[in-house]
């Protein structure tokens, strides 16, 4: 019993880290520009397909494909940001939702056309496939790897946001965009870089997710809901909030599926609606 609890906690934490990687970029960009980017998971999906293509068609090793997934997702996203999204920063929520959901539809259909609707296979290297047993608890090597990568990235994000000049500019823009502009900060430029970084992280998350949740064209829509939950519960523009919300969501989703499979995701949605009604700006958000 106890070991199963630890097992669920461990798997849930690893899953939560995955959700964190997928959603942290959206949280920061939403906090900066109030741009509702529902296509965020499509950039994650791009990362996943980059990894699959490089590994299966060109024989690249798994680890080498991860940076490429990051870069391709980042570049694609910044292309869209410069050509389409920036025109809608002052538009209504509805227009932003519609444009980005249109892009989700296009990405889902394109992925289905190119790769088919089947789940994509991924062959992990042998050192990531095994598992370790520590005090009766089985820890999957891949999940350990995932947790380690996510923790390193979180630390890098927090450090760069707290201690670099660029991080200070981003924080200023999240707190008060107009004031930041007034002080001569190039908010648009900072935003474009943040957007690219966030989408790159989503791409990395998409690549890392293949072994855990699989990859098919519906990825962009299926994980959108989870990402939005993390963002809105964690609070806009808050890395710590996203981290906490992602961990909470990952563990409770895993526990719910393990202990109460018959009610499915019902609990998750109930908790989310309840939390949002209690605190519309999210658990750690300062403004709505």
């Amino acid at each position: 019993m106890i070991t199963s609890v630890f097992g669920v906690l461990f798997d849930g934490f690893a899953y939560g880290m995955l959700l964190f990687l997928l959603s942290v970029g959206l949280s920061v960009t939403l906090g900066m520009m109030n741009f509702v980017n529902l296509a965020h998971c499509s950039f994650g999906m791009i990362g996943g397909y980059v990894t699959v293509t490089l590994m299966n068609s060109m024989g690249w090793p798994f680890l080498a494909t991860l940076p490429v997934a990051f870069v391709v997702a980042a570049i694609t996203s910044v292309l869209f940001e410069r050509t389409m999204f920036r025109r809608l920063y002052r538009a209504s929520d509805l227009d932003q939702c519609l444009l980005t959901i249109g892009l989700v539809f296009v990405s889902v259909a394109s992925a289905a056309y190119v790769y088919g609707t089947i789940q994509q296979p991924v062959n992990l290297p042998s050192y990531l496939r095994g598992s370790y047993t520590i005090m009766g608890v089985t820890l999957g090597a891949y999940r350990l790897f995932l947790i380690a990568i996510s923790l390193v990235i979180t630390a890098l994000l927090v450090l760069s946001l707290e201690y670099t000049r660029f991080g200070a500019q981003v924080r200023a823009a999240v707190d008060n965009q107009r004031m930041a502009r007034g002080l001569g900060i190039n908010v648009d430029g900072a935003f474009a870089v943040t957007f690219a970084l966030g989408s790159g992280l989503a791409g990395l998350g998409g690549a890392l997710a293949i072994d855990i949740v699989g990859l098919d064209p519906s990825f962009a829509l299926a994980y959108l809901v989870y990402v939005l939950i993390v963002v809105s519960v964690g609070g806009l523009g808050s890395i710590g909030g996203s981290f906490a919300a992602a961990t909470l969501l990952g563990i409770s989703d895993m526990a719910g599926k393990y202990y109460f499979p018959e009610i499915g995701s019902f609990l998750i949605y109930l908790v989310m609606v309840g939390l949002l009604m209690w605190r519309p700006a999210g658990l750690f958000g300062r403004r709505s």
Partner: protein
Amino acid sequence: MTSTSAALAGPHEHLRAQDRWRAIEVVFWLATLLPFLVTPNYLSLASQVAITALFALSLDLILGYAGIVSLGHAAFFGFGAYAAGILSKHGWGEPLSGLLFAGIAAGLLGYLMSFIIARFRHLALIMITLGFGLLLLEAANSAGWLTGGADGLQGVRMWPLLGMFRFDLYGFTAYWYSLILLFLLFLVSRRLINSPFGLSLRGIRENSTRMRAIGAESRAHIRKIYTISAAMAGIAGGLLTQTTETVSLGVLDFQRSADILVILVLGGAGRLYGGLIGAIIFLVARDQFSGINPQYWYFPIGVLLVVVVLFLPGGILGGLAQITGSERFQRMVRPLMVWRGKSP
């Protein structure tokens, strides 16, 4: 011409002028009878279009007029569909009272939700409507004893309409039944929108803070229109159940909420005919391309959405209105107007 003179005469005169029937509207509603004569093989598609148009109209009331963005409007459609289906399964298959039951059930749910809806805006509102829709879908999926779960609700049997007209295989009864209801509820919506209440809804959409500042009770208005819209969506759902005699989980799907949003925006949100035109184009196009994989079908839809948002903010009807309102067009049609004796 009429609008400027009416604006000078005051708001009531303006509303009355808006409420007057135009020739193009009469033509549109007469054209809805064409499927009976021209395409009798497509009557079941036509009734689908009428039901979808009604659903889009219900969304238009809250989204187009009151500015409440909803990503989960299928919740009410599905609730009405299940209400009608469950009533019929338990032995009461009379269509009209079943439809009333569906409308009241969805309306009640909408009334309860409206207290939450009226408090939020922006991202929190989008997330709450989305979460509520998913919540209802999961609930219906889990409550297999009531809804049949993933297998769908079996055993829906409808009695003949008014005791005389059976729901036939060709969709003849289904179409005129849906069309009459669409028309009646359209009249209700039209009256609502062209009333002082409708005007204050538009005020809320444009600037809700200001509406509160000038003393308009915007939350009460939002609650009212949300309840009405939910009831209409429920009736649309009930119609779908009754005309197809089956209910599946698809009625509550996120895809349905997204589709109806696309339909409305494509046609033109904030215009009474937007949802109707959108439904016709969307469903007829989907029927024409039904041969291709539904996964690919979303490619043109997505492109269309992007194009509409970037280049055609008012949807198809908005674009048309822009063309017909332009100087060049006015100059072009002026000779015709003179001929009909309508020019000033």
